[in-house]
């Protein structure tokens, strides 16, 4: 069954906090849920489907659903594919609505890694003996930064991609972040500043890495008839795609991501091509993440990403493909170390015409949002959404 047109995003809310020392994770879930329902013009009593990922406190959705007082649920889903979970949740909510399993689905994300002092990108965590790959990888000093850096190194080797080209991705994000009062890093940076920032994991510099922030976000997905009865602009789900990519027994090609498959599935369902997309939210845990995904989604050929992102091509009003106009994970925020939620939220803002005027794409009728969750160089989930203003 095609999910094209089967549901709409009717509410979206991004928490303004970037450091929530005085709030619990459950309270953050509640505040974003309230914000998204207020945005939609709905109440908690309208919610009959609830979605969160595996990081939500408690078993699956149970504890947070109780904290929120959601007592009319007939469909729940706590699929966890890291930062890409929330794009998958929109797809799963759309499928559930199409099947009549629910009418109004609430999706929440919240976390406070910054207040908790997590060294997200550079620390090696303790082994969990039940995770089959841990005993082979954790002793090797596996880190998030290294997992992405190895992809960058191989991409440079095969295609001649340069650090300066990667830096353009950060430069574009910073051009957008200067207009976002909530962004953690509002200063516009240059290619030179990026490549001269300290190396974290060669060839990635500090400014190639996303921020660590507290916060969260929420989305409300509803049946199209409900969406049309509300006062907000209608954003319709047109295409969805998901994929996993792993080491596959030791035959992993680090130059591409699961976006190659999830993107193709989403474009096929939507019946559109990359050339039709006016705005793209692209997961930006690191600059290399953006470059590899842009290639895999078909915005340029494999290996041509460096040339594609250079010279401001991702800057709204300047380049051909405006991306992450909120400043993205590289400059704005990366709540709970999971950037997929904010990717969808900024795409919704663009389609509604509610992005900051300095970065709003004119006549933005069709947008793409894409997430990678997990570790690009090891195993990760990919989820792609194509959304249309109706």
């Amino acid at each position, binding site marked *: 069954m095609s999910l094209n047109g089967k549901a709409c995003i009717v509410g979206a809310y991004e928490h303004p906090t970037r450091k929530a020392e005085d709030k619990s994770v459950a309270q953050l879930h509640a505040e974003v849920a309230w914000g998204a329902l207020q945005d939609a013009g709905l109440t908690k009593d309208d919610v009959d489907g609830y979605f969160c990922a595996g990081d939500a406190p408690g078993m699956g959705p149970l504890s947070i659903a109780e904290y929120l007082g959601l007592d009319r649920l007939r469909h729940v889903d706590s699929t966890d594919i890291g930062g890409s979970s929330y794009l998958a949740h929109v797809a799963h909510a759309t499928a559930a609505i199409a099947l009549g399993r629910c009418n109004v689905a609430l999706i929440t994300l919240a976390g406070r890694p910054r207040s908790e002092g997590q060294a997200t990108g550079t620390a090696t965590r303790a082994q969990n003996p039940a995770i089959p790959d841990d005993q*082979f990888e954790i002793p*090797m000093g*596996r*880190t998030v930064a290294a997992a992405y850096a190895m992809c960058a190194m191989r991409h440079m080797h095969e295609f001649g991609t340069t650090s300066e080209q990667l830096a353009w991705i950060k430069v574009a994000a910073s051009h957008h972040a200067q207009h976002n009062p909530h962004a953690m890093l509002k200063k516009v940076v240059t290619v030179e500043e990026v490549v001269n920032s300290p190396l974290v994991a060669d060839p990635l510099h500090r400014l190639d890495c996303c921020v660590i922030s507290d916060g969260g976000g929420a989305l409300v997905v509803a049946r199209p008839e409900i969406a049309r009865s509300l006062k907000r602009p209608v954003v319709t789900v047109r295409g969805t795609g998901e994929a996993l990519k792993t080491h596959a*027994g030791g035959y992993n090609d680090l130059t591409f991501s699961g976006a190659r498959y999830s993107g193709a599935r989403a474009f096929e369902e939507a019946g559109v091509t990359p050339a039709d997309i006016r705005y793209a939210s692209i997961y930006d845990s690191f600059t290399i993440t953006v470059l590899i995904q842009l290639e895999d989604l078909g915005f340029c050929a494999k290996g041509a990403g460096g040339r594609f992102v250079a010279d401001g091509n991702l800057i709204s009003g300047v380049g051909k493909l405006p991306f992450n106009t909120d400043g993205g994970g590289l400059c704005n925020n990366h709540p709970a170390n999971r950037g997929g939620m904010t990717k969808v939220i900024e795409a919704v803002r663009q389609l509604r015409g509610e992005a900051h005027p300095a970065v709003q794409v004119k006549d933005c009728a069709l947008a793409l949002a894409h997430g990678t969750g997990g570790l690009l160089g090891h195993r990760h989930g990919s989820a792609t959404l194509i959304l249309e203003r109706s």
Partner: protein
Amino acid sequence: MSERTIQAPIPDPTTAPFWDACREGRLMIGRCKDTGRHFFPPRGVSPFTLSPHVELVPVSGRGTVYSYTVMRAKEPYIPAMVELAEGPRVFTNLVDVAPEGVRIGMAVTLRLVPTEGGPPVPMFAPG
């Protein structure tokens, strides 16, 4: 380089023979008896067919650098993917080499490096 303390791997019942071989100075990897293909990490099933028709087989310990990075930690180290002569790529570290001496494609050989109270882990050095 690699002055850092290396966490001891925690073997499970399925992987104990792999780690025992490391203690004896040998690298073994998985082989699918149905397809003849090697795989890594070893496990109790074939990643190609899901069948339990698998075995642990010794390998040459020779390979080439597929990719790498340098973690600029207090004690820097070199995580890498090494492509074994037998095919599979292994997530490992490069040792006995300075970061500026590493090139993708360079030949490397096995070095079993001691860990904190556990079996040694398979790392690689130029040569």
